[in-house]
């Protein structure tokens, strides 16, 4: 028996906003009958506000609960607000879902994204994604595209193939795409890392900031001080002042304290040189 939250149980027992809107402004679809779950969502949108939402779901308890709560989450919200909703928001609103059932919340997100896409001027939520990936199917058993996997990794911080399967179903049947899923995980984190890389100016500012706020106050306690002289790649040139400059332990201070503090803060292999 799944460990469903009270809220999940309440929503599959008494689903809200069930049905079809015949004159809907946007209709979104995710999943399929053969895959075992499917969600159709219908939206009325007026002046950029979702004024009504209804759903029809073929699926398990958590699929119905995810669909039902999603309609409650979006009615009365602006399209801009609705765009920001992720699968994690749906799962959180339900008080959590069992890990193996997270794909139900992803189905809600996918149907919503599909509806907004059909509505008009919608653009992909994630600029990191490449357009050609939108249609590229990774898991042929469950028709899961690379985009869906990418979003699930990003929104939920997924790290393993098993987690991706729980969230998107990809890899859950024949398992042939597990290697591809691992590649996508690797690519995502490499990209994330490279985008976190600082520009040269940002790096200089950061180093100077660390010296001023973390290193200098400590040296001042002992009657000394320090300032940044120059940065060349991984070599950071500093000048010690006051008591520090004449201290016989100056090299030790540089290596053990200054260099270590900067290494940790920058997550880089740097060398500090006293000039």
């Amino acid at each position: 028996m799944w460990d469903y939250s009270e809220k999940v149980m309440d929503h599959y027992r008494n689903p809200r906003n069930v049905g079809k809107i015949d004159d809907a402004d946007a209709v979104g679809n995710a999943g399929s009958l053969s895959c075992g779950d499917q969600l159709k969502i219908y939206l009325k949108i007026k002046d950029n506000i979702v004024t009504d939402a209804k759903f029809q779901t073929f699926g398990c308890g958590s699929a119905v609960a995810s669909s039902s709560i999603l309609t409650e989450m979006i009615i009365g919200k602006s399209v801009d607000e609705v765009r920001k909703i992720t699968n994690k928001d749906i799962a959180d609103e339900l008080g959590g879902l069992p890990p193996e059932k997270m794909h139900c919340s992803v189905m809600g997100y996918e149907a919503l994204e599909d509806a907004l896409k059909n509505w008009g001027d919608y653009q992909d939520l994630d600029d990191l994604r490449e357009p050609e990936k939108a249609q590229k199917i990774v898991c042929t058993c469950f028709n899961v595209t690379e985009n869906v996997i990418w979003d699930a990794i990003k929104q939920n911080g997924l790290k393993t193939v098993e987690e991706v399967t729980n969230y998107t179903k990809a890899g859950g049947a024949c398992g042939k795409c597990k290697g591809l899923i691992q590649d996508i995980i690797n690519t995502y984190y490499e990209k994330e890392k490279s985008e976190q890389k600082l520009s040269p100016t940002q790096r200089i500012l950061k180093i100077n900031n660390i010296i001023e706020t973390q290193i200098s106050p400590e040296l001042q306690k002992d009657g000394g001080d320090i300032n940044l002289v120059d940065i060349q790649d991984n070599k950071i040139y500093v000048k010690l002042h006051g008591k520090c400059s004449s201290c016989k332990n100056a090299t030790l201070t540089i290596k053990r304290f200054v260099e270590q503090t900067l290494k940790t803060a920058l997550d880089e292999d740097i060398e500090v040189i006293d000039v």
Partner: protein
Amino acid sequence: MIYLDNNATTKIDERVLDAMMPYFKEEYANPSSMYNFSKKASNALKEARGVLKDFLNAKDEKEIIFTSCGSESANTAIKGVLNYNKSKKHIITTKVEHPCVLNLYQTLEKQGYKVDYIGVNSNGDLDLEQLEAAITPDTALVSVMWANNETGVIFPIKKISEIIKSKSPDTKFFVDAVQAAGKIPLDVQENGIDLLGISGHKFHAPKGVGALYVNSKTLITPLIVGGHQERGKRAGTENVPYIAGLAKAAELAMDGLKYEATEVKRLRDKLEKNILKNIYNSRLNTGVSNRVPNTTNIGFEYVEGELILLHMSDLGICASSGSACTSGSLEPSHVLRAMNVPFTAIHGSIRFSLSRFTTEKEIDYVSEKLPEIIEKITAISPYQDELAALKAHK
């Protein structure tokens, strides 16, 4: 609570529990010990072996090995045969076996065995021609379940053993009878069976005890090596209270076979007829005949099984589903897929399995409540047009 999931496990019969209690309390001796105190325990073991011999109509009590469960019985039989004669590398089984057997064969395939998986038709009946064609002198083992756990469909064991013996007399025949025990008569001699496994908790004994029949002409390498227990075929101090319980359950099962074939079957048929008559998007996933008397597997089109189970559970009704969602796996039942159950119904397939404890009142209650549940779930399905067409057609 209405328990219609007896193919998953069963309630322990009070009489079984009573038969076990002395061996938990006063008679705790090790049956192998050499003093008078151990006599009752060793006698219990001996008697139990006699009951199981009768239960399966084995020739000799020495052909009965007590195990801890159905999976251990199957593993001991299959690995036991293959390891005893390592020259043969071919195995034949079916696409609809229980996962405990199927997963073992998939492991054996990785170890270099060639395994043929025989298919079934839409009624769930085995393709005997395909089976016959697959048998060669290199076939070490044919492994077939007696009754299917999900559908209750019975395979023609006697016919299969005749086919095997006519094509390759040295090939061993293992029958997984876990779902047949207590429901239909089991006769290993009449049916030409070499090895047969059963599990106690499927017929009102507790979980944690099973048995394996190995006929005297079939030699196996033991799975669990250690002491001399079970004539060296299964080491480990005998689980006397559970074995006593298994024997009592087997005794009661033998007495109850007629009740299964008449009363349990009558109630199953009543439930089945009521559902098929009153719920327009229901279909029987098997043929009508050739099934154990307690099981029915019904598909509900355009609705999903877990949701049916959850709504039934709210009313205290227990059953199980072939849907992907209930198992934590993402694919629906391999049995229903092998039978080509339409994709519109496969995810909404429910197994009801009765027992001798099922009452008419319970069946009436489920018959009354199920249409309301299905209607409620059908109302939220995205397939309203298809459902309307189905309704009009019915």
